[in-house]
């Protein structure tokens, strides 16, 4: 089956090409069939190839397919080679399967939009780029996909470009991620300089021979690669772009800014785990950034009004969990949480999109309310996603993935009590803001009259994703009960086993505390927003609380900080140099040429005798010089 591997990215590319060049001339129905069909076919090929991969595990646990040589420079040759191993299979599965569901949803969601074909063209290009990113066998090809998804993210955030704010959000996302990408490019140069190759498997096999453990060079390389991941995955300190990226249509938020692209950083760190394994400092940085981000974004999510911004901050927070897991060395736990998160976050965004659409583009949760009975399908599916996000014990997939991370953040090699405490606090906050969001949206009084209900093409993906959000967790059960480790066994040929500390307390205790944190968070949300809403009013009178709310609401004032630290000085410097000092030299040369032209043009008087005089003078001059010399 491995010779069909190329079809997985080729189908979305084909869809993009058809829609980009012929999208204007074909009917809307044809656009929908091409746009969603290409991804669905790609998902089917993925199931076939993935099934063959799983049933007959190839020798070195990887399918590779070299398509052609991209270019050769000296010793370096970059090949277009796809390689499918367990890690990329998980990502390809999430991208094509969830992508297909989101495309089907979009055919209905974007129905009334003027630029139907442009939307699907960009979405298909995104899926293609993301597949190139995860299937690439060398870092250069991966970087191509990496930049491709950045471009598509930019195009789709600014999809409704008539509103200047959307364009600004798109530019912000592009610029902020560019900072990370630039660092990552430098990281790639360092890898090539030190390892002499960019092929991932070669780097992985020789990493310990190339780098001394904990040497400065390996730490710097790892940190530069990490910076790329931080930009793409919206982690501290490059997280500011993701909340604004919600300006794009909801399916875009679901696919790009929740399920797939923003987890590219997780993929990169997991893919380059051999480099990170060699540097303790880099791993600590990954874990600390993850922990700080999950706490900070969680608290911000607690204060937001806009339902999509809650989900955006919650995405940042959940990716923080993944980075925390990567940092403590729980590689498979991070990838597991990625997959579960992709299911429930895509679901939540799609359901939120359906709600927003039905309520005439109302984003404010305080103006929703009472949708429980009016939109039953959306309610139940949203509830499935929400319990997964809040990690309700035993019944939700999110519990199994997040509980694993909480457990490893204490007990794995790189874990410690502080990281665990932060993660636990994060779990409480997650449950609290999820409950707040549920209650505000679905309970209470209705504030906005409801328009049309979502059709079957929109609810079907919701139901499928809801099933996965609830049941997908059972493929990996904790060690103390069930001990069913299908998922991590699958990944172990690629990712190393988690190294555990000695003398750790019983896992039961951690699960109990995690469950208590979740239930406590749910209770807090229930108490303040359902049982005693008057308490919120009381809190609002407290000056300190109001200040804190304002601070958290602004995302810990990062936007203002960057504005003052970077944007304003940059604008100031560019305003001083408005006249462009370096340009003066060149305009000066041009001015001198112009003056000389004016001077010499006077000699063209039309007087023949003057011309002859000039001729004679010139001849005499040259003859004179010749005689003199």
């Amino acid at each position, binding site marked *: 089956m491995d010779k069909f591997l190329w079809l997985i990215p080729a189908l979305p590319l084909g869809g993009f090409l058809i829609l980009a060049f012929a999208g204007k001339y074909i009917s809307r129905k044809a656009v929908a069939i091409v746009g969603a069909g290409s991804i669905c076919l790609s998902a089917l090929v993925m199931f076939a190839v993935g099934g063959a991969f799983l049933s007959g595990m190839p020798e070195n646990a990887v399918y590779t397919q070299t398509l052609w040589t991209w270019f050769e420079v000296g010793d370096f040759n970059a090949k277009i080679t796809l390689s499918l191993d367990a890690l990329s299979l998980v990502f390809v599965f999430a991208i094509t399967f969830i992508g297909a569901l989101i495309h089907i949803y979009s055919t209905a969601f974007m129905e009334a939009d003027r630029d139907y074909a442009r939307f699907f063209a960009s979405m298909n290009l995104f899926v293609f780029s993301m597949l190139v990113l995860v299937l690439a066998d060398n870092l250069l090809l991966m970087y191509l996909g990496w930049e491709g998804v950045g471009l598509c993210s930019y195009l789709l955030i600014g999809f409704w470009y008539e509103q200047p704010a959307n364009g600004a959000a798109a530019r912000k996302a592009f610029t902020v991620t560019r900072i990370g990408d630039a660092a990552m490019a430098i990281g790639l140069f360092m890898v090539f300089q030190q390892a002499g190759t960019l092929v991932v498997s070669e780097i992985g096999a020789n990493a310990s021979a190339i780098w001394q453990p904990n040497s400065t060079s390996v730490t710097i390389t790892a940190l530069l690669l990490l910076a790329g991941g931080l930009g793409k995955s919206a982690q501290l300190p490059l997280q500011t772009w993701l909340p604004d990226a919600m300006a794009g249509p909801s399916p875009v938020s679901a696919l790009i800014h929740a399920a797939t692209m923003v987890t590219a950083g997780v993929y990169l760190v997991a893919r380059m785990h051999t480099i990170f394994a060699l540097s303790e400092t880099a791993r600590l940085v990954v874990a600390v950034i993850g922990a700080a981000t999950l706490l900070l974004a969680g608290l911000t999510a607690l204060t937001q009004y806009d339902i999509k911004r809650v989900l955006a901050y919650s995405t940042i927070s959940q990716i923080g969990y993944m980075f925390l897991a990567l940092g403590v060395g729980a590689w498979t736990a991070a990838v597991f949480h990625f997959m579960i998160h992709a299911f429930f976050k895509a679901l939540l965004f799609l359901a939120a999109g359906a709600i927003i659409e039905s309520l005439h583009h109302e984003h404010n949760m305080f103006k929703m309310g009472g949708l429980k009975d009016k939109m039953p399908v959306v309610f139940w599916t949203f509830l499935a996603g929400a319990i997964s996000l809040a990690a309700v014990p035993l019944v939700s997939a999110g519990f199994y993935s997040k509980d694993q991370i909480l457990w490893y953040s204490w007990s794995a090699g790189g874990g410690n009590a502080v990281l665990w405490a932060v993660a636990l606090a994060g779990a409480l906050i997650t449950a609290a803001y999820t409950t707040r969001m549920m209650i505000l949206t679905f309970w209470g009084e209705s504030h906005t009259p409801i328009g049309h209900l979502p059709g079957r093409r929109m609810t079907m993906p919701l139901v499928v994703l809801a099933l996965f959000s609830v049941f997908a967790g059972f493929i990996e059960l904790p060690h103390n009960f069930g001990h069913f480790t299908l998922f991590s066994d699958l990944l172990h040929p690629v990712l190393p086993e988690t190294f555990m500390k000695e003398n750790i307390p019983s896992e039961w205790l951690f699960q109990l505390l995690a469950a208590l944190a979740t239930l406590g968070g749910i209770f807090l949300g229930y108490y303040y927003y359902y049982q005693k809403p008057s308490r919120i009013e009381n809190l609002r009178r407290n000056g300190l609380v109001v200040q804190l709310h304002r601070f958290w609401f602004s995302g810990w004032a990062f936007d203002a900080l960057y504005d003052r630290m970077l944007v304003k000085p940059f604008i100031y410097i560019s305003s001083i140099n408005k006249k462009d000092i370096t340009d003066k030299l060149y305009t000066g040369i041009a001015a001198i040429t112009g003056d000389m032209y004016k001077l010499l043009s006077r000699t*063209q*008087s*039309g*007087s023949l*005798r003057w011309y*002859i*005089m000039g001729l*004679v003078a010139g001849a005499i001059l040259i003859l004179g010089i010749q005689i003199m010399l």
Partner: protein
Amino acid sequence: MKPSVSIEVVVLLAGLLFALGIVGVIIRKNIIFMLLSVEIMLNASGLAFVAAGSRWGQPDGQVMFVFILAMAAAEVSIGLALILQIYHQHKSLDIDNLKEMNG
């Protein structure tokens, strides 16, 4: 037969004639006289060729003079034709009146 005049004298004469021609072209305003001056310059160079040919005992100098003669004839005919045209259009033979052409 030995040359009775030394080469230096002849070249000097040619140079003098050439200078005369140039001065004529520059200071004269009448186109016909300018054409005459050009003829003088041509003949000056012809004289220099003949003298040089006789000095080295080579026929090339005389061959060149025949060329110059032929070219001068052609030049004069074209020149005169142009002068006729100029006179028809401008009713004058003053070169300064042609400044307006700015060529």
